């Protein structure tokens, strides 16, 4: 997939998570085409967008990293990740990352991309499958846990 379409998502994730929670995320290599299904780390936010192109951003976090970010931002800890405020915060995180990335993409190219609302999933051994659409994944590491970003564009980003 065209790296000009995927890179902004990685940069926005790094910048926004650092600004909000002071967590430094380091990318491991570049975006690679996703082969097969994604086996979730445990906390997954999905946010779709559409405009001149249609696509989807998936942010998948290890529970330790998700908890660290939420605690830093909210200034409180949660007994369970199932708390609606906790899950809502993860949704908001994907909104902020996705919104920032789309703004950058729209500034580069007249794509007029808009975000839908985020959906957040928690579960053990979740498998995420996006049939019929090509996607690329990048793995990111921090001191408190791993994260992956998966970006999909319909028709591989060809308008």
């Amino acid at each position, binding site marked *: 997939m065209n790296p000009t379409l995927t890179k902004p998502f990685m940069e926005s994730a790094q910048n926004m998570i650092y600004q909000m929670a002071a967590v430094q995320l380091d990318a491991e290599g570049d975006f690679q085409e996703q082969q097969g299904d994604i086996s*979730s780390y445990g906390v*997954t936010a*999905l*946010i*779709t*967008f*559409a*405009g001149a192109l*249609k*696509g*989807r951003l*998936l942010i998948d976090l290890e529970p330790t990293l998700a908890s660290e970010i939420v605690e830093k931002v909210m200034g409180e800890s949660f007994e369970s990740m*199932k708390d*609606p405020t906790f*899950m*809502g915060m993860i*949704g*908001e995180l994907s909104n902020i990352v996705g919104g920032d990335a789309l703004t950058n993409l729209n500034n580069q190219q007249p794509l007029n991309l*808009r*975000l*839908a*609302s*985020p*959906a*957040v*999933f*928690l*579960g*053990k*051994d*979740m*498998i*995420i*499958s*996006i*049939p*019929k*659409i090509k996607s690329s994944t990048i793995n990111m590491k921090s001191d408190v846990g791993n994260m992956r970003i998966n970006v*999909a564009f*319909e028709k591989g980003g060809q308008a």
Partner: protein
Amino acid sequence: MDIKYIAPFLDSVKGILGQFGVEKVTRGKITKKENMNVDKDTISIVGLVGDVKGNISYAFNEDTAKNIVSAMMMGMPVSELDEMARSAMSEFANMITGTAVGKLTELDDVDDVIPSPPSIIYGKDIYMIISPVETLSIELETDAGQIEVNIGLEM
């Protein structure tokens, strides 16, 4: 959330299942939820952007998913949810949402709605939030099994 935005989705489920020969579709419990424990193991989710914004998810048990895929493939037996079956599940979500979007744009205050490609999530004991506002969960009893339609629109 106004019922006029909800009804097209329920009608579409009934219409599309009817096309595949699943005749009986009755509406069960409707509940309003903040976040939800989905006791089903397959969830198809589609996002909407435009005058109607939000997420719609369709949740099934594995057996229901197999029954629906089998009905879509003219009764061919489906023993596991392989790649082809998953593609069919995604098409099912696409068809329902596409039909519903067509009906939504007939409303006076809706001109432009774009559905996103569906994603499918499998697993046990899944919790989800699909809207920052509120989500309506509607159980549909069908001949193929129970389908839980969750509608979260920012309206």
